[in-house]
């Protein structure tokens, strides 16, 4: 079992929980299991093709899974997982 930290904007979809206990051999398996347990969370994590949304970043022990094997990254007991949003915006008139 591992702890997955949920960012504040997504906590309304995990019954307000900040840290959720998760189980799975890979990051992808953990996320699918999480979305199954909290069905309303799914649309905010994955797009209609089942790919992670661009503003959703998964970190394992403070390293982006994209620098490992993405959703196939192996998770071992004690690894700390975090869902980290990207923030962007601005006027962008032209």
């Amino acid at each position, binding site marked *: 079992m591992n702890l997955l930290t949920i960012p*504040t904007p997504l906590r309304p979809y995990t019954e307000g929980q900040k840290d959720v206990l998760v189980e799975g051999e890979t990051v992808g398996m953990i996320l699918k299991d999480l979305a199954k347990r909290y069905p309303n969370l799914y649309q905010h994590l994955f797009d209609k093709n089942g790919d992670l949304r661009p*503003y959703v970043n998964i970190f394992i022990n403070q390293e982006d899974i994209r620098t490992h094997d993405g959703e196939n990254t192996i998770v071992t007991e004690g690894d700390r997982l975090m869902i*980290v949003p990207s*923030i*962007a*915006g*601005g006027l962008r008139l032209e």
Partner: protein
Amino acid sequence: MLSISDKLLQEIMHHAEFHYPEEGAGLLLGQFRGDFRTAVQLLPLKNQVQASSRHNRYRIEPEDMIRAELKAEELGLDIIGVFHSHPNHPAVPSEFDRERALPWYSYVITQIDGTGALESRSWRLSDDRQFLEEEIFIQSSEVL
């Protein structure tokens, strides 16, 4: 409702002035109960967009977000929102802001021009992804 001290609001405006004519950005750390959130501390961050686009765009990288999450955890706070400036434009979210916004966060936007920061307004994304203005309750620092 977003409750914020006049001192923190001034800091947001000074941050916008410091970065003018570029957009400045950062995070609001604080506490919340239901829809009522209180800003306790600002976390000014570097606008990670390339220099040539900083006059109309801002970006906070996930690496900065993770450091912010850990900092907030250390202080017993949460990230409750994002602040950024609109140089020479109203403190109203753009379509670009809306497309990239997350639910729940308070988005504080500061209008600024060559004379200084003019006003700050707060916005939150609705369930159908439209921005609705959020009331700002300004607390006097003298009574805190």
